[in-house]
């Protein structure tokens, strides 16, 4: 493919030099998720986009291995050509989104509760740790318990533990049929129904509620989808595919607002959260988007009572903690884990939490 290049050598050299001089590095991919997490502080940019290309795609293995700078667009097109897909539906948010960024941010789309998250499909990866060493963990096989699961630990770590070089992912066949049903429901009714349906053997692959209507996506063999459609009822949504893309990419009307956007993660069956602001329920109730100017502390207390956590996803005051603060015991383990991979603290310092 065009522009494929292995830049492991030069990248390793840059990290090793930074390690030698104690210079912080700011890892840069396509920049589509630069808004996410805490702001990148001072530091030397480390550009990964040139390290790109699909290394191996064996359709029969249901595995694809690609370099971190490969665009999600290229990756998804390659898979689609073989009737396959990334099951966790990673959001791009902007053109140029890369595989490395998708894994480092650990974000998954509407199918997450039914098919799994990014981390569930990561089989192995190669990385450069803060000592400038190139290391490989996991592999291209479905089952592998040799050593600790470092590959999954890298997922969502925002590059603070290592520079991801290459990722092997499990992929799945595209469903033969997919359709979306719409039913008018209150939020409370929708949450209850989404959870009830998830406990039944139905080909459910996404479920959300926009304040007025419940949207249910069915994916599978044509026969299974048609049978479930008959069972569930509701209006069939035309352009269902575009609808879910809007939810995933946050181009859906709900997200068009300049006020701070919060991502609330909580037990899926939790009843509606009574909070000031507008809400959108996704992931069958387990992920709720909130647009609100409420103070972070108040909001987080509410989420803690609900056994969940809150992330300031976009906008708002990003100089404080953007991710939910950790308990003292977990904070200590996080600091020690950071030191285990990046003893000098040169990789994306402060991007995840202020002190790691």
């Amino acid at each position, binding site marked *: 493919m065009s522009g494929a290049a292995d830049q492991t050598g030069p990248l390793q050299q840059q990290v090793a030099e930074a390690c030698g001089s104690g210079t912080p590095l700011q890892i840069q991919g396509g920049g589509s998720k630069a808004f996410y997490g805490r702001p990148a502080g001072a530091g030397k940019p480390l550009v990964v986009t040139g390290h790109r290309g699909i290394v191996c795609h064996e359709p029969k293995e249901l595995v694809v291995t690609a370099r971190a700078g490969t665009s999600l667009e290229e990756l998804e097109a390659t898979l689609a050509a073989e009737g396959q897909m990334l099951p966790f539906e990673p959001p791009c948010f902007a053109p140029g989104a890369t595989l490395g960024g998708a894994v480092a941010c650990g974000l998954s789309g509407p199918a997450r509760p039914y098919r799994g998250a990014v981390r569930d499909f990561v089989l192995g990866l190669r990385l450069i740790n803060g000592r400038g060493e190139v290391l490989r963990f996991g592999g291209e096989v479905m089952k592998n318990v040799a050593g600790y699961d470092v590959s999954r630990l890298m997922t969502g770590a925002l590059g603070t533990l290592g520079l991801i070089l290459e990722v092997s992912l499990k992929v799945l066949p595209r469903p*033969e049929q997919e359709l979306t049903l719409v039913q008018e429901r209150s939020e409370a009714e929708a949450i209850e129904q989404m959870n009830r349906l998830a406990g039944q053997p139905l080909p459910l692959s996404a479920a959300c509620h926009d304040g007025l209507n419940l949207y249910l996506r069915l994916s599978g063999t044509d026969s299974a989808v048609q049978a479930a459609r008959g069972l569930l009822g509701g209006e069939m949504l035309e352009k269902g595919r575009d609808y879910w893309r809007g939810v995933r990419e946050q181009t859906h009307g709900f997200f068009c607002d300049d006020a701070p956007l919060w991502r609330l993660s909580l037990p*899926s069956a939790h009843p509606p959260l009574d909070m000031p602001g507008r809400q959108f329920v996704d992931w069958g109730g387990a992920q709720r988007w909130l647009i609100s100017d409420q103070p972070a502390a108040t909001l987080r207390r509410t989420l803690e009572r609900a056994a969940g956590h809150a992330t300031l996803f976009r906008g708002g005051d990003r100089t404080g903690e953007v991710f939910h603060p950790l308990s003292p015991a977990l904070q200590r383990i996080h600091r020690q884990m950071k030191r285990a*991979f990046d003893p000098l603290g040169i990789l994306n310092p402060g991007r995840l939490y202020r002190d790691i």
Partner: protein
Amino acid sequence: MLVRELRRILPAASVIDDAESLRPYECDGLPAYRQMPLVVVLPETVEQVQQIMRLCHEQRVPVVARGAATGLSGGALPLADGVLLSLARFNRILAIDPLQRSARVQPGVRNLAISEAVAHLGLFYAPDPSSQIACTIGGNVAENAGGVHCLKYGLTVHNVLELKLVTADGELVTLGGPALDAPGYDLLALMIGSEGMLGIVVEVLVKLLPMPARAQVMLAAFDDLEKAANAVGEIIAAGVIPAGLEMMDGFAIRAAEAFVHAGYPVDATAILLCEVDGSNEEVSDHVALVRNLLLRLGATEVRTARDEAERVSFWKGRKSAFPAVGRISPDYYCMDGTVPRRNLARALTGISELAERYQLPVANVFHAGDGNLHPLILFDANQPGELQRAEDLGGEILELCVQVGGTITGEHGVGHEKLHQMCVQFTPAELNQFRAVKAAFDPEGLLNPGKVIPQPRHCSEYRALGPEARMAPSQRGGEGA
């Protein structure tokens, strides 16, 4: 001294230190390795576990955790100077939430007991290792257990939402939670499969899945191993993810048939068992598709289980294959490597060549769908040198798995058994990174020390032997039992 302190924390009956009562704890499911622990403790509450860990931390005494001890890699092998902490009394299901589809259980709850407890709700706990009648969820977490159905439903790591664990210094920490993710690093994923080296799991919140409306199993016979191995990849390439896709070779087929009379074709070179599940319509479609595909790919016969009784019978043969082989051989040694599916035939050929060279029969019964091999090496421990030969052959089979792009363990863990092969699969820098990860949780190295991650000296000695010397059983280095 330590024992006296432990008796202050626990009732007298929960501290065992006399030789006779310690004996049952000297090994796990891999009895080739045995070691009597200094003392066994059987706490009943989380507070007791914390107190034990604080005491051991203070006195720098190593601790090995133990569940049902069905592990096959010596992961729960005790230490002569250490405490063996049994979680057998943590055996309660604490809560079941049908709407949320989760169950909160103690680590000593048996794997199958969870599915049994939620069956009336139309739910089940997906990972189903062969030992599921006996093995416990705590051990499943330690090993990241899989099973027959993990091809479609995932491993333990995909089916656990939250863990409560006691750290090496006695602190209680929660990883994950009832939501689908937690803030910070994914320590939950790191903990699963960490073989008791990062913390003692004292509570587990598992995800429950809806039972499929229908399941149907097909049995395909082949007169050629390569054709069977090839069919595995073709089924998946056709867009079907079977709930289970298992393979048995001729040796295993005949042993199983003689044992449980499952109705297997005893003249076949290999059989595939392919189970598809889902809605009624989906299963009908997939059965037709897979059946035609198998015949086109050279299956000499494809049978679809006529009813539930026949489905159970087909699976019974597979599930009893290990004891069936055990019946015809004084001892057997079960291996656990994974290879990419495309290299299944190559790996199987390589294994039969090695078996020939070592003059020991090998039976193959395995999770073909995810390339997870379980070669069973038949030997007689009463014949001088045979155990050593079996171990050497096993080691070479695992190294063969690495050579063809796979791994030394798919689901049994490294434990004590595969320390040599860790040196083959990982570079010194990677092993060093593992040590740093362990130190982040357990700086003093008190949790299950000596397992999983070989010491640098161990690897340099093993590597120094060179591939030629490593093949000569008499010259193999290692600590043995």
